[in-house]
C-alpha cells in the first residue's frame, strides 16, 4: 500500500467515524421526546431511529461530492484539509456529547473545515458571506421559527383536546409521537448520511481513485448508512437526557407537537433549500412545546447553555480543525495524518472513559433532572 492509499484510507475511516458521532449525537433530535413521555421504551426508540436512519440514507442518492460548498473555496480542499476538518468536527461532537449539549454536527464539520482551510490556504479561501448566509444567520432563525411553530401547535393541541379523556389523549398522542419522530429520523438519514457520502466521494475523486463523473460507489453508500445507523442505535444518551428531561418536563401532547413542528420545518427547509440544522430546529421545537403549555416550566439556564454552545461550535471546531491540520502538516504525509488520527482516537477514548464515571444510559435516561446531565444516586438534592 503506497502513501497516497494510506491517506485515502485514513480519510475514509475518519469520515465514517464522524458519521457515527453524527448519528449518536442526533438520536436525541428525533427520539428524546418519545423516550421522555414513555411513548417508546428507550431501547426500542433508538433501534427504530437507527433503522429509519439507515433506510433514509438510501431514499435519495443524488450525492453531491462537496464539503462546505459555498463557504470555502473548492480549490483549497485537499485530502489533508478534509481530514483535519473531519477531526475538528468529530472532536467537538464528542466534547458536546460529554456535556450532554445538543450541538449541530453540520456546524461542527463546517467549522473544522474552515479552520483547516484558514491555515492551509489563508483567509481568502474562506467566503465570509457564505459563512454568514449559510451558517450563522440560519442558526439564529431556525430555533426562532421552530419555537414559534411548536408553541402554536402545543397551544392548539391542549385547547382542542381539553375535553378528551386523559387515557385517550395520552395514548393517542403517543401514537402520533412515534409517527412524527419516525419522520424526523428518516429525514435525518437522508440529509446527514448524504453529507458523509459526499465527503468520501470527494476524497475518492481528489485521490483519482474514481473519475469526477463516476458517481458514488455502492460501498460508500452502504458504509455511510451503516455508520450513521449504528451511531444512532448506540444512542447519545447524555444528549437525549438534556433534550427530553433537562429543557422542560414533556407530556405526550407536547412531544407530538414538538416533533410535528420539527418534521414540518426540516422537510420544508430541505425542499426550499434553506440550510437549517436539524439540531437547532428540534431543540427550538421542544422549547416551544414548553412555552405553548400554560404554566409549563422551562429551565432557561439549560436553554442558555445550549445557545452558548451553538455560538461556540463554529470557532471551537475551527480551532480543532486548524490544530489537526497544523499537526498533520508539521509531521507531514501519511505519518502526520496517522499521528493526528491516533491522538484524536486517544482523546475520544479519554472522553469515553470520563463518561463512564457518571454514565447516562437507557436505564437512567428518564431519571429526575437534578441540574446535571448525569443523574446522581443521592436523594433529596436541589432541583435546578
Amino acid at each position, binding site marked *: 500500500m503506497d502513501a497516497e492509499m494510506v491517506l485515502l484510507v485514513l480519510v475514509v475511516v475518519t469520515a465514517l467515524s464522524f458519521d457515527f458521532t453524527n448519528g449518536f449525537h442526533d438520536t436525541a433530535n428525533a427520539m428524546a421526546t418519545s423516550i421522555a413521555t414513555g411513548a417508546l421504551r428507550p431501547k426500542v426508540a433508538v433501534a427504530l431511529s437507527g433503522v429509519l436512519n439507515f433506510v433514509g440514507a438510501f431514499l*435519495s442518492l443524488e450525492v453531491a461530492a462537496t464539503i462546505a460548498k459555498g463557504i470555502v473555496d473548492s480549490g483549497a480542499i485537499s485530502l489533508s484539509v478534509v481530514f483535519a476538518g473531519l477531526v475538528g468536527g468529530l472532536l467537538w461532537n464528542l466534547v458536546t456529547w460529554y456535556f450532554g449539549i445538543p450541538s449541530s454536527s453540520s456546524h461542527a464539520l463546517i467549522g473544522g473545515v474552515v479552520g483547516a482551510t484558514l491555515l492551509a490556504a489563508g483567509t481568502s479561501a474562506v467566503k465570509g458571506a457564505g459563512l454568514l448566509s449559510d451558517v450563522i444567520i440560519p442558526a439564529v432563525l431556525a430555533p426562532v421559527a421552530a419555537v414559534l411553530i411548536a408553541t402554536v401547535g402545543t397551544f392548539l393541541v391542549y385547547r382542542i383536546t381539553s375535553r378528551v379523556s386523559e387515557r385517550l389523549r395520552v395514548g393517542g398522542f403517543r401514537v402520533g409521537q412515534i409517527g412524527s419522530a419516525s419522520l424526523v429520523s428518516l429525514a435525518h438519514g437522508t440529509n446527514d448520511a448524504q453529507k458523509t457520502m459526499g465527503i468520501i466521494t470527494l476524497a475518492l475523486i481528489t485521490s483519482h481513485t474514481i473519475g469526477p463523473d463516476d458517481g458514488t460507489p455502492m460501498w460508500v453508500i452502504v458504509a455511510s448508512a451503516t455508520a450513521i445507523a449504528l451511531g444512532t442505535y448506540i444512542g447519545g444518551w447524555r444528549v437525549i437526557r438534556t433534550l427530553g428531561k433537562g429543557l422542560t418536563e414533556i407530556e405526550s401532547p407536547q412531544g407530538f407537537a414538538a416533533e410535528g413542528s420539527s418534521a414540518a420545518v426540516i422537510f420544508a427547509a430541505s425542499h426550499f433549500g434553506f440550510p437549517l440544522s436539524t439540531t437547532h430546529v428540534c431543540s427550538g421545537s421542544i422549547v416551544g412545546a414548553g412555552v405553548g403549555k400554560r404554566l409549563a416550566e422551562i429551565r432557561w439556564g439549560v436553554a442558555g447553555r445550549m445557545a452558548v454552545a451553538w455560538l461556540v461550535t463554529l470557532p471551537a471546531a475551527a480551532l480543532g480543525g486548524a490544530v489537526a491540520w497544523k499537526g498533520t502538516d508539521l509531521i507531514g504525509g501519511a505519518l502526520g495524518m496517522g499521528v493526528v488520527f491516533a491522538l484524536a482516537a486517544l482523546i475520544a477514548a479519554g472522553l469515553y472513559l470520563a463518561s463512564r464515571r457518571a454514565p447516562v444510559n437507557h436505564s437512567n435516561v428518564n431519571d429526575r433532572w437534578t441540574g446535571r446531565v448525569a443523574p446522581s444516586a443521592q436523594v433529596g438534592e436541589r432541583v435546578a
Partner: protein
Amino acid sequence: MSDFVDVDSLWKVLAVGLIGGAGLVAVFAFGLVGLSAYADRPPGARPKVLGLVLACACFLVVAGGAAAGLVALLAK
C-alpha cells in the same frame, strides 16, 4: 440583510412549517376529539359514529400530509 438571507424561501419555510407543523398537529387533535366522542361514552349510550368518521378523516389528512412531506423531501 436580504443579501445574506434568502427571505423568499425563509417565508415559505415558515408558512409551510406552520401549516404542516401546527396545522396537521391540530388536525390530529381534532381526530382524537372525534375518537373521544365515539369511545368515551357513558355506559349504555349509543356510540357516536359521526365521531369515528371525523376521526378517520382527520387521521387520513395527517397521514396524507406526512406522505406529501416525504415526497417534497425527496424532490428537492
